[in-house]
């Protein structure tokens, strides 16, 4: 299908001529916890359609032409911001980047006031990265603009989980029935939470692996397994998703040393050799070579770490498009 062609007003581009089974009605994407499996699939299908745009001679579609997108990053990030920026530009939006140091937040202005000012400038979409859980929802409830969560504290990072899920689906042909391990600092990881929601809703078996200090037992209530024995799991995994060991949290003692972490939970070459041949190795980045993942394993053929980055663009295009269209009624 040709996504650049204008289509009837309410039809989702991703579903082509098929009757849409679900309509996207959300102006915001603050998390995946409340999404239905059908909504998740709709985003992934839309992303698949947008992915082809990146390989064309002209890498742009007019889906957000004349729209203003603000990348509002109150917590530092490079790759997520760049990915959203590029995604927005491929949709022909005008993009403004704002960071905390460049905003009035450092002068004592509240998040609410800063956001209202952005709205007064007629921003259509605000992409928010913030260190406080719930910050995206806070803005979404107060603004007419679409709000897309680019990570809020230890809560959710929905587009990261969508790109993870997209990558798995593309490689494996589906999600249901796969055994996915998420390894590392689950307690502080917004990626882990969003991954859990996306993968379990789509029927995967999810096992959380890590030191007992960083894998909260309460998460078992979400229908996932909890393990502290990575070695026992290796042969049965279809996907292993390694989370970054967050050096900035080392001021609190959650495990004795990086060396012991690697010895217990690092994907070393020896461990990688015990994985199934077609097991995917994933990482949300930025990676710590030699800590949670061996350098050669990160560069090996089963690693899809850079595909994740590429797919992130398509997924973010889909999310920006869907949320903007649900708000404005301007469907392709």
């Amino acid at each position, binding site marked *: 299908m040709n996504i650049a062609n204008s289509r009837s007003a309410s039809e989702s581009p991703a579903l082509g001529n098929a009757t849409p089974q679900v309509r996207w009605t959300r102006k915001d994407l603050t998390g995946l916890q409340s999404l239905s499996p059908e909504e998740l699939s709709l985003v992934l299908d839309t992303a698949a359609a947008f992915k082809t745009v990146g390989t064309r001679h002209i890498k742009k579609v007019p889906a957000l032409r004349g729209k203003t997108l603000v990348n509002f990053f109150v917590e530092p990030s490079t790759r997520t911001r760049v990915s959203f920026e590029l995604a927005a530009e491929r949709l022909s939006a005008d993009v403004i980047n704002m960071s905390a140091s460049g905003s009035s937040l450092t002068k004592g202005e509240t998040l609410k006031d800063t956001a209202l000012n952005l709205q007064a400038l007629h921003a259509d979409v605000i992409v928010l990265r913030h260190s*406080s*859980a*719930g910050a995206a929802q*806070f803005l979404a409830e107060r603004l007419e603009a679409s709000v897309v969560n680019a990570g809020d504290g*230890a*809560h959710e990072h929905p587009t990261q989980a969508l790109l993870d899920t997209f990558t798995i689906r593309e490689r494996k042909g589906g999600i249901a029935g796969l055994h996915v391990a998420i390894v590392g600092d689950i307690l502080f990881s917004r990626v882990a939470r969003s991954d859990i929601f996306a993968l379990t809703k789509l029927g995967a078996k999810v096992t959380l692996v890590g030191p007992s200090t960083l894998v*909260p037992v*309460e*998460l078992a*209530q979400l229908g996932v397994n909890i393990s502290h024995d990575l070695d026992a799991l290796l042969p049965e995994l279809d996907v292993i998703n390694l989370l970054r060991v967050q050096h900035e949290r080392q001021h609190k003692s959650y495990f004795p040393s990086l060396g012991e972490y690697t010895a217990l939970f690092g994907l070393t070459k020896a461990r990688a050799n015990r994985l199934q041949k077609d097991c995917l190795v994933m990482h949300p980045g930025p990676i710590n070579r030699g800590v949670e993942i061996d350098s050669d394993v990160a560069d090996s053929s089963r690693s899809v770490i850079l595909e994740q980055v590429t797919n992130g663009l398509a997924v973010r295009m889909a999310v920006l498009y869907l949320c903007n269209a649900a708000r404005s009624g301007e469907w392709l």
Partner: protein
Amino acid sequence: MSTSSNSILFKNGRVIDPANRRDAIGDVLILNGRVASEGAVVPPDVERVDCTGLVVTPGLIDLHVHLREPGQSAKETIATGARAAAAGGFTTVVCMPNTTPSIDSASVVAWVVEKARAEACVRVLPTGALSKGIAGEEMAPIGALKKAGVVALTDDGRCIQNHELMRRALEYAKMFGLTVMDHCQDYSLVGRGVMHEGYWSTVLGLPGWPAAGEELIVQRNAMLAELTGTPIHCQHLSAAGSVRLLREARQRGVPLSGEICPHHIALTDASLQGYDTNFKMNPPLRSQEHIEALLEGVADGTITILASDHAPHCSFEKEVEFDQAPFGILGLETELGLFLDILVHKRKAIDLNRLVEMYTINPARLLGLDLGTLSPNAPGDVTVLDPGLEWTVDREASFSLSRNTPFHGWELKGRAVRTVVEGRSVWSL
């Protein structure tokens, strides 16, 4: 002055006066600001209030409120907090010292006492800080505070972490007969916690405040109350283990007591799902099993006092990211309705008599106040209740300067309908 100024006759009400084991239909006469003895002659011009179908009790006491003055008068003033107290049925409020500056010197106590005398429509009794500046490092001038009129000592909002300092402050306070009230929170366990540590904190990604962070200090207090003999009152208990530890200590005769606030039995941590900061308080809302333990503690007499922890904050202060918002909610105008509704009507943990006891003679005895009774010649403070009255909480109708309540729109059964301080009607429905 006529003989009947500050006088009022409550007729035909159900008089509940737990201090005197009285629970019977009858009259209560306040004459010249004091309770008249039974059989006293009623002057002809005294206002008569028909209390048929209503309950007449000693004026209710809230042992735990934040009136925010000096220094935080955008949130609340002594005058507005007192009006909210009157509308909630309270004739006496005990205000916390975590103001700006804190109430840690005789001059600030004097300022509060004078301001209350001039502007408050109910009794406002100040507490003094236990440590200088509520910083938990040096003992506050406890003797000077006592002399200036504080009724108890507390670092409420904070908790002295240094056990040795706590021990010495307790020993020193004993010399003045002052009760110490403690906000039980272990800082190293609680850290940056903003909500109950459990399933919901994990899913919402908010830093957890484990129940053990309270229980550990309750146990510390049990040990230090036993060691020093100074009574310690544990404020706003929220955790099941705290109730168990308090029960055990009291059974051994340790001078330890505890209070609960209505939000800790009305709401669970599941309320935090929308990140609404009106559900953020310290200690935090916990899970249902903790609520059940608190109810059991009330029912079996382990918990002896009910209070609000009335903590007004401006809307703009609360309307920020969840982890950055201040802790605390309004309480004075909703606490009686919530406790009547939950403790007496819905869960039947206690009867009306016990509820009145927990709001009158129990707090009065804890602090050694000549209040909370209808004994002859006691101060003429009276609250009239309609325990069956159904009403809806409306935050816009609040007398407080602030609006931070999670109970807006709640339908409750039971409330005060008249509040009388020293024979003067300060509020009526």
